[in-house]
């Protein structure tokens, strides 16, 4: 059984060696002229303003949290969809109850302003 993984092992090896060769070759043949501008932080071609280690706006986290919850709940939708053909009618109704409860949650988040960008 372990032999079946050998292919994947070879794949990993190639994937690791390829960039090493590419970067290594470039490093060998390139001209070496370091300057301060080259070491600067890249920010869309503009000069960076202020420190780059700033704190992210907390709004991102709220979005992420709301997304996370709805994202994970689809774990239950997937097996349901795969088995949809053979499930009795009740399972169909049940899933709508589940989605209904989720919708109440979304409504709540909306109404409380979690989806507004402030």
């Amino acid at each position: 059984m372990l032999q079946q993984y050998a292919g994947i092992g070879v794949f990993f090896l190639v994937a690791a060696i390829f960039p090493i060769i590419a970067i290594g070759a470039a490093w060998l043949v390139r001209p070496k002229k370091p300057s301060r501008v080259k070491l600067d932080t890249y920010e869309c071609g503009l000069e960076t303003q202020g420190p780059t280690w700033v704190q992210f706006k907390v709004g991102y986290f709220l979005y992420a949290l709301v997304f996370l919850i709805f994202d994970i709940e689809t774990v239950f939708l997937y097996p349901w969809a795969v088995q949809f053909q053979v499930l009795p009618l009740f399972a169909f109704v049940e899933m709508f109850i589940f989605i209904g409860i989720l919708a109440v949650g979304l409504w709540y988040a909306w109404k409380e302003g979690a989806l507004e960008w402030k």
Partner: protein
Amino acid sequence: MNQLQMDFNLLTVEILMATLGLVVLVLGLLIPKNQSRGIAYFTTIGLVAILLYSVTMQWTKAEFLNGMYLIDPFSTLFKQIFLLTAILVSVGSYQFMEKYGHNQAEYYSLMVFATLGMMVMASAGDLITLYIGLELMTISLCVLTCFRLRDAKSSEAGIKYIILGAMSSAIMLYGLSLVYGMTRTTVIAEIAAAIALDGVSPLLLLGLVFLVAGFAFKISAVPFHIWAPDIYEGAPTPVTAFLAVASKAAGFAAMMRVLLIALPDLFVHWNVMIVGLTVLTVVLANLVAIPQTNIKRLLAFSGVGQAGYLLLGIVAFTQLGVGAVLFHTLFYVFANVAAFMVVIAFYNETGSDEIRDYTGLAVRSPLLAAVLLFSMLSMAGIPPLAGFVSKFYLFTAVIDQGYVWLALISVLMSMVSVYYYLIVAKVMYIGKPADDAKPIKVSSGLQIALILCLVMIFAFGIYPAPFTDLAMNVANTFFTP
């Protein structure tokens, strides 16, 4: 698919609870924020109605989904205990929430969902169901714990609760996964059968250790109690009352189901652990309670101690033991919630939880002082109050099994507990109130709840027969499949 037993009538209580929680949440969205007092009343009325309905199912014994969910007198009695606590706590929350709260609908809705989680725990006939119930309860309670957003202590209690709660859940889950692996099933009745057939393996024992540690955390038994005083102190007081009574009862319900029904063949192994926990809990909690200066911390340690007495019922592993646990939990609802309601009423008026500020409470509000005194004496086990009867049953249960020394330690530590309860009594009754101290107003709803609790504390002590009969009959049905 069709051979699954799915009689949804059995789930009426749970379905009603889930509906109530959602309706309360939606109501909060529809009703303007400044008119949300009605939501609180609506929740209480809904909970009372569900409690009354649950009485019709008192002696129903049935399985749902082939044993994954059990409706039996044991779980129904526990559900009634949770509902009672939720009702009393919701009544106790009115004034508090109006003064310090915001978003009332969310508060009451979370409380209903936490209660639902406890119900699922008590009824769980399957490890997965048990875990879902446990997490529903823990996560709801976490949000409730940090409900006072502007109060840093509340937030701190919340973060401690979620971190420690999640960690203990993970530890317990590891135990559950090992038990599942070694028995090839997650249904509690089948686990017992599989162990009887296959015998005990080292991995199963490892799983048991993790499991007991997880449960010990949920019921806050020493040495897994460190979280309790901090979180009790930081949480809004009504939530503390809920945590101290209902979540502990739920922990015991699930623990008894798993240890006594799923793992009876491991009795010799878990018995050693539980006896150790009991001794540590009873001794340490009562000693550490003595120097406390904050009433909520004092009640927290006294609650930890009560968990120790309840563990005696599990050590006994008999019908009498289970019955005694049920009876003690039932009485504990009234005694402990009453004590916390006094703390709430006092805090609403003065904004303080320090014991020294209770000086002369007997003059400022005779009712509050009397309720606090009697509920504390009852928890200490002074006759003719309720605590005496329930402790008598618990001690008898362990003495029957030959643990005389364990009962002796517990009696000794009960006497120690009288000491720190009496310190509070002394402050309330002998101390002179400060000159500028005003009488404390108690709202009529809270007064009714307090008097009800007081009556129940006396009723349980003076005429316990109907309640002990109920508890013992329920315990009789617990072991029969």
